[in-house]
């Protein structure tokens, strides 16, 4: 019984995000002129998956009590790179995908090395590396566009519907959770990441591989952010080095992560929660379309909902038993 209560408390954030998502999405579908059809679900899934991938990326780093403000820029860099590399025959496309993912890994590795060996604060260093990544993206793709012989087969397959019903992007997301998140969570390194996030000195004293844990977190973050960028290319068939887009994805990923119950203080939460956080965040935005809101009021509505959601999710005021706990 105690175990159940404990795990419920651990997962509270995730359930909150799930509840928000279900309510918002139910509203959305109920008021959508087309109703609950595969096409509506597919569109919603495709939009949600982009943010979900970036939020997953953010989760790894936030779990170590760090923060990665360069995820949006890695996302943009991968997007621009993919618009060049996804060309020609299927083997070449596969090679291109590999190249994009490797770039993401390298970006993450750079962040990790700077944080670990440079002993710099992640929040500052990732701002700087983000500027570098964005510069490179702008270099290879000064104007939005795509390669002439862009191969859209893979893109169509991964953004379409499986068996005519199920959105492929959602399937891809589930696959990622099964292939990356669950093994990570159950591995020694995964435990080490949680331990480092809870208390780095204690983790170090217990012989937890602190450096390896942090490095893995940043590398995986880079990889998933690059996957997000890749997916962006699948949707748009093109790359665009947009500073505004990059910043929006970075900031939205933080909001999604918090909405999904991952603690910014580290060591608490899961990527699954972050995914639901991202889907819920997107559903809030989608709601406005079906209600035929004046688009001018959309940012305000989104902001207020975000404010309420994260305030409720994050306010520690209602959880403390002792006044001094406020400061820990």
């Amino acid at each position: 019984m105690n175990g159940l209560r404990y795990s419920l408390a651990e997962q509270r954030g995730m359930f909150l995000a799930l509840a928000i998502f279900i309510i918002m999405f139910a509203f959305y579908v109920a008021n959508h002129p087309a109703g609950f059809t595969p096409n509506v679900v597919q569109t919603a899934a495709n939009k949600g998956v982009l943010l979900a991938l970036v939020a997953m990326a953010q989760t790894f780093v936030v779990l170590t009590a760090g923060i990665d403000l360069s995820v949006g820029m890695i996302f943009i860099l991968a997007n621009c790179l993919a618009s060049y590399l996804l060309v020609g025959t299927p083997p070449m496309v596969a090679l291109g995908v590999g190249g994009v993912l490797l770039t993401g890994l390298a970006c993450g590795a750079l962040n990790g090395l700077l944080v670990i060996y440079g002993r710099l604060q992640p929040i500052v260093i990732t701002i700087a590396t983000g500027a570098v990544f964005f510069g490179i993206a702008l270099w290879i793709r000064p104007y939005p566009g795509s390669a002439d012989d862009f191969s859209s087969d893979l893109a169509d397959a991964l953004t379409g519907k499986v068996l005519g019903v199920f959105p492929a992007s959602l399937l891809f997301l589930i696959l990622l959770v099964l292939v990356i998140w669950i093994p990570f969570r159950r591995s020694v390194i995964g435990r080490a990441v949680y331990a480092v996030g809870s208390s780095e000195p204690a983790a170090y004293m217990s012989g937890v591989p602190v450096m390896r844990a942090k490095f893995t977190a940043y590398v995986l973050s880079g990889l998933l952010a690059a996957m997000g960028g890749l997916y962006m290319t699948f949707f748009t068939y093109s790359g665009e080095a947009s500073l505004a887009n990059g910043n929006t994805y970075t900031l939205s990923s933080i909001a999604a992560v918090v909405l999904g119950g991952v603690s910014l203080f580290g060591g608490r939460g899961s990527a699954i929660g972050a995914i639901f956080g991202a889907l819920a965040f997107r559903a809030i935005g989608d709601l406005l379309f079906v209600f035929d809101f004046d688009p001018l009021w959309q940012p305000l509505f989104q902001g207020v909902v975000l404010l309420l959601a994260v305030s409720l999710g994050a306010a520690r005021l209602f959880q403390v038993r002792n006044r001094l706990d406020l400061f820990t």
Partner: protein
Amino acid sequence: MTTDKLDAPATSRTNWTSRIDLPVATAFGCIILLLLVGSLYSPNFLSPEYLLQQLKVGAFLGVIATGMMLVILLGQIDLSVPWAVTLGAMMASAATAYGPMGEVFAIPFGVLCGVLMGLVNGIGVAYLRIPSMIITLAVNAVAQGLMVAYTGGFAPQDSASPAMRYLAAGTILGVPNAVIVWAITGAVAVFLLGRTTFGRAIYGIGNKEAAAYLSGVPTQRVVMIAFALCGGLAAFGGVLLAGYAGKAAQSMGDAYLLPAIAAVVLGGTSILGGRGNYLGTVAGVILITLLQSILSVMQIAEFGRQIIYGAVIIVMLLLYGRERTGR
């Protein structure tokens, strides 16, 4: 603006040299290096006009970074600066449109709006205990929403009041008013941080809030006021920017968030709070302004500027931003 006026004691007098000198000295060293590199390219870089012009451009960032520094010293961060800047600029310009009375109250009104926004942040952080990164992000989104709804999605038609223009673009005896405004802001900040209980409390909270609380510091109130000040200063920066440009524009504040954080951190202020002095922030602001200016004068393409900008910040942080070892 003399140096001795700006030397703010950080935490204790005895450790003055060991604690403060290295980052600030390195930052000023980098400034001189940048100027030398620039002067190799064009002798104009060492002319008083150019330097004064840089100080004037840097003044806007300087005012905004002052507020950011207060918050960073607490160990918090304010991500709502972009729309606090825009809010200040737009509200001041909007007030100008309401006749002579509006013109008189344009600047105070703009700053007041920023203070209110900062107050919301402060209440969220201090009393509701929401992580500052989250609440300021959300408040930023709300402010953006309000401004978009207010302006109807377009740049507002109202232009800056004469007072705003004078403050930002005028000169007194050849010294740009913006620089004077920054100097006054800086002097007040130095006094506040070094000579008042409020300033001491900020350093104390940044080092360990629980300890500050147990020593009788009203930590929640101090945190709230610091955020309100940060919002007010960001809005004031926006008012000046609107005066400089003649009118307010959407997303005019976007370009100031990261440079403000970078300026504070490059100046040796610890992002974890509790350590740093204002002279360092001045150095950081000048450094970033010069870097941006030199990169654009050299006509390096935008992508190159971004890469060099990021790389220089990384290198300088590696030079002196490293945390001590030992766990």
